[in-house]
C-alpha cells in the first residue's frame, strides 16, 4: 500500500521552494521580463540567509540568543541578497536594454558560483570536518510546526506539520493571484507585459512596473532558497545541494499557465513527482530512478503541447515576454 500520509508531506516540502520560485517568476514574467536568473537568485537568497545566520549564531551563545533576531537576520539578509540580484537584472535589461536571456543565464551562473564560493568560505571559517555548514539553532525555529501538529494524527501531519515559511508561500501565492487579477496594479502589470506600447500610451510607467515586479519577484524566489536551507535541509548548507530546483520553478510557471494560485497545488504535484522515484520499488536498477526524475519535465512538456493546441489566448505567455521596450523605437 502506497503510504500517502508520509508521501504527501514530503511532496509538500519539496514543492514549497518551487512555489516560491514560480510565484516570483510569474510576477516577473507578467511584466514582460523573462528572468532566467531565478535559479541563481534562489541560490543567492539561500546563501545570503546562511551568511547572516552563521555570523549571528557565531556571535551569541545559547543563553543570550534572541529568537526574533534568529529569524529576522536570515530573512532580511535573504531578501536583500535576492533584491540586489533583481536590481542587477533590471538595470541590465530595462535600463540598458540588454538581451534578457543572456542576462538571465549570466545571473544564474553568477548566483550559483557566488553561493558555492561563499558557502565554501564559511565552511573553512567554521572549521568542521564535514564539508557543510550546520545552523541547527536557526533551523529549529524555521522548521517548527504549528501547535497541536503531533496530537492530531494524520490531519496534523498533512496540514500542520510545516514551518511558517511554507504557509507564507501559500499566502504569497494567493496574494499574487489576487493582485494580478483583481487590482488596478495587477491590470497595469499585465498590460505592461502584454503590450508595453499600449501601457505607455495609457500613461503607465513601464520601467517602474518592470523594476517593481522583477525585484519583488526576485525577493519571493529568494525566500524559496532560504526555505530550502533552513527548513527542508534542516539548516545544512552544502555546495550544489539545491540542485536544479530553480529550473523546475521556471517550468512550473509554464505548467501553471502563469497563475500563482494554480501554482500551489501544481508545486506539490511537482514536488511529488520529484521524489516519486524514492517511493517506487525499483530494486537494484538505479537507471529506473533516473527515468522517474524526468517526470516533472515530461509533465511540463505535455502541458505545453496541450495549451499550444488549444490556442486559448488567455493561456499564452505575456505577448512581449523577453522583449525590451524603448518608447521612441521605430
Amino acid at each position, binding site marked *: 500500500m502506497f503510504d500517502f500520509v508520509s508521501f504527501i508531506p514530503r511532496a509538500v516540502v519539496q514543492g514549497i521552494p518551487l512555489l516560491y520560485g514560480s510565484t516570483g517568476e510569474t510576477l516577473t514574467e507578467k511584466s514582460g521580463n523573462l528572468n532566467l536568473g531565478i535559479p541563481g537568485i534562489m541560490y543567492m537568497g539561500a546563501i545570503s540567509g546562511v551568511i547572516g545566520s552563521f555570523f549571528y549564531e557565531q556571535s551569541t551563545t545559547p543563553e543570550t540568543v534572541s529568537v526574533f533576531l534568529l529569524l529576522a537576520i536570515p530573512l532580511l539578509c535573504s531578501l536583500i541578497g535576492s533584491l540586489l540580484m533583481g536590481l542587477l537584472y533590471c538595470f541590465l535589461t530595462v535600463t540598458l536594454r540588454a538581451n534578457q536571456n543572456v542576462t538571465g543565464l549570466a545571473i544564474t551562473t553568477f548566483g550559483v558560483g557566488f553561493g558555492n564560493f561563499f558557502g565554501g568560505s564559511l565552511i573553512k571559517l567554521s572549521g568542521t570536518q564535514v564539508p557543510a555548514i550546520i545552523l541547527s539553532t536557526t533551523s529549529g525555529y524555521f522548521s517548527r510546526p504549528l501547535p497541536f501538529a503531533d496530537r492530531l494524527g494524520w490531519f496534523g501531519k498533512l496540514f500542520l506539520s510545516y514551518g511558517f515559511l511554507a504557509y507564507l508561500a501559500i499566502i504569497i501565492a494567493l496574494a499574487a493571484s489576487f493582485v494580478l487579477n*483583481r*487590482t*488596478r496594479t495587477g*491590470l*497595469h502589470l*499585465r*498590460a505592461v507585459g*502584454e*503590450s508595453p*506600447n*499600449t*501601457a*505607455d*500610451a*495609457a*500613461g*503607465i510607467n513601464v520601467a517602474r512596473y518592470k523594476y517593481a515586479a522583477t525585484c519583488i519577484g526576485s525577493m519571493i524566489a529568494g525566500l524559496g532558497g532560504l526555505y530550502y536551507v533552513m527548513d527542508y535541509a534542516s539548516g545544512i548548507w552544502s555546495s550544489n545541494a539545491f540542485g536544479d530546483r530553480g529550473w523546475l520553478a521556471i517550468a512550473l510557471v509554464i505548467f501553471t499557465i502563469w497563475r500563482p494560485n494554480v501554482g500551489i497545488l501544481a508545486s506539490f504535484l511537482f514536488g511529488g513527482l520529484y521524489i516519486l522515484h524514492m517511493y517506487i520499488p525499483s530494486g537494484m536498477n538505479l537507471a529506473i530512478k533516473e527515468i522517474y526524475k524526468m517526470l516533472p519535465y515530461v509533465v511540463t512538456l505535455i502541458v505545453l503541447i496541450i495549451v499550444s493546441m488549444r*490556442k486559448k*489566448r*488567455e493561456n*499564452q505567455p505575456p*505577448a512581449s515576454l523577453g522583449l525590451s521596450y524603448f*518608447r*521612441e523605437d*521605430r
Partner: protein
Amino acid sequence: MDKKIPAVSLHGITKTFGSTVANDKVDLDIYRGEILALLGENGSGKTTLMNMLSGIYFPDAGQIAIDGKDVVIASPKDAFDLGIGMIHQHFKLVDVLTATENIVLGLEGKLDLKAAAAKIRSICDAYGFEVDPNQKIYDMSVSQKQTVEIVKVLYRGADILILDEPTAVLTPQETEKLFTVLRNMRNDGKAIVIITHKLHEVEAISDRVSVLRHGQHISDLTTARTNAQEMTNMMVGHAVTLNIDRPAPFNPKPRIVVEGLTVRSSDGILKLDDVSFTANSGEILGIAGISGSGQKELLEAIAGLQPVESGSIFYVEDDGHRQELLQKDPQEIAALGVSLSFVPEDRLGMGLVGSMDLSDNMMLRSFRRGHSVFTDRKTPHHLAEKVVKELEVSTPSIATPVRRLSGGNVQKVLVGREISSAPTVLLTAYAVRGLDINSSYTIYDLINRQKKSGVAVIYVGEDLDVLLELADRILVLCGGKVSGIVDGKKAQKNEIGMMMTRLGGEA
C-alpha cells in the same frame, strides 16, 4: 474666427530622428468645434507632430500652448491631463483584456469594472457607438477596436481628439458611421484632428485643412474654399494629375483559372468557399471585400503558400496548355512567373526583413540563382538603386535597414522588388496601403505598365474609388464567397459596398 483662442497652439515645433528632420519649425492652431484635417505625404511628419502632442515623443524645440497657456507635455499622462486623446493608426489595445479593462488602463483609484462598464455604456449612448464592454479585444473586428479606442479617450474626458488615419482599415459603410460620430463630437464642442491622405474624406469631414510637406507646415486652407487639385499640389509641391489611367486590356487571354477553390484556416474556419474565376493576361482583376474576407488566403493559395481543401487552380500557358498549380511548391510556382507582393498590416510581416538593408532585401528574391556557393551581391545592389531612384524612396542610403524607413517607403521597396522580377502573374494586396498620393500614383503607373506588357494582375485593394478607376473587372468577396464579378468601368461604388456586406448585394 481669428478672435477665438485656439484649443491647441503649436509654435516652432522641431523634432529630429538621427539625421532625419521629421518636423521643422511647425506652427499649427487647433480650435474647438472644428474638424481639422492634417494632410501630407508619407514621411511628411504628420504622425510625429501629433505624437508630440500626445506625449509619445518630446519635441527638440518649440512651444505648445493649450487654451492660450504654455504647457510641457513630457508623457502620455500629461497629455491626458490636458484633455488630449490620440487614436493611433496601430491600435494601442491589449488583446487579451476586455474592452472595459483596456479603457480604464492607466487610470488611478480602486478598480471597479462594473461602474466603468456603466459609464462606457452611457458614453456609447451619447454619441452612437456600439461597444460590448465585456468583449475581449481579440474577438473584435478592426472597426470595433477603433470604436474602443475612441471611447477610451472620451472616457478620460478628452476634448481634443487626434485620429491617425482612422479610415485606412474601414469599409465605406464603417467610414460613414465614424464620420457621423465625429460630427456629433464636433457639434459637442470638441476639437478634432484627423490625419489622412484620402482627399475625398478631407472634403467630406473637415472644416479646415493644414498641409505638411517634408516636415514643414505649408499652409492652412478652409475646406469649403479649396479643392482636391489645390490640396494635392500643396502636398506634393508641384502639379500632379489626379486621374488614374485605365488602358484597354491588352490582348486578354485566360492566364489563371480558379475553379471551386475552398480553403480552411488551421483552426478549421472556412476562409474561401467555392471560389471560381478567371484572371486574364493584360488585364487588372480587382478584388474588393471587407478585410479578412479571404483575400489573403486567395492570393496565398495561388502562390502555393496556403493548403487548399478542394478545388483547382490552373496556370494557362500562351499555347493554351494548362498546368495545375496545386501540385507545385511555391518555388516552382514562382519559377512560372507568379509573383506575390502582399503588404500585410504591419508591412514588414511578409516579404521584407526589417533589420536587413535594401540590397539584402532585394536579394531575398534572387539568392537561389547563380551556381557558386557565394552570393551575387552586385545585381541586387543595382536593383535597389534602381528602385530607390524610380520610386523616389526616401532613405539615407541603400545600406539602411528597412525597419528604419517610414511605412510608405518600405512598401515602395517591396512592390518595386516584386515588379522587377518580370512576372507573368502579379498578385498584389494593399499595394498602396498608407501611401501618399504621389507614391500611390507611381505604383498605379507601375501596375499599368505591367498590364500593358501582358501580365495578369490581381489587385486586392481597400479604396473602392481607386479599384473603380484602375481595375478592368472587380471580383467582390463576401465572407469567403464570390459575391459577384462586375465591370470596373460600369460598376457603382454603392453597388460594390452592398456586395461586400451581402452575397450578391441584395438588400
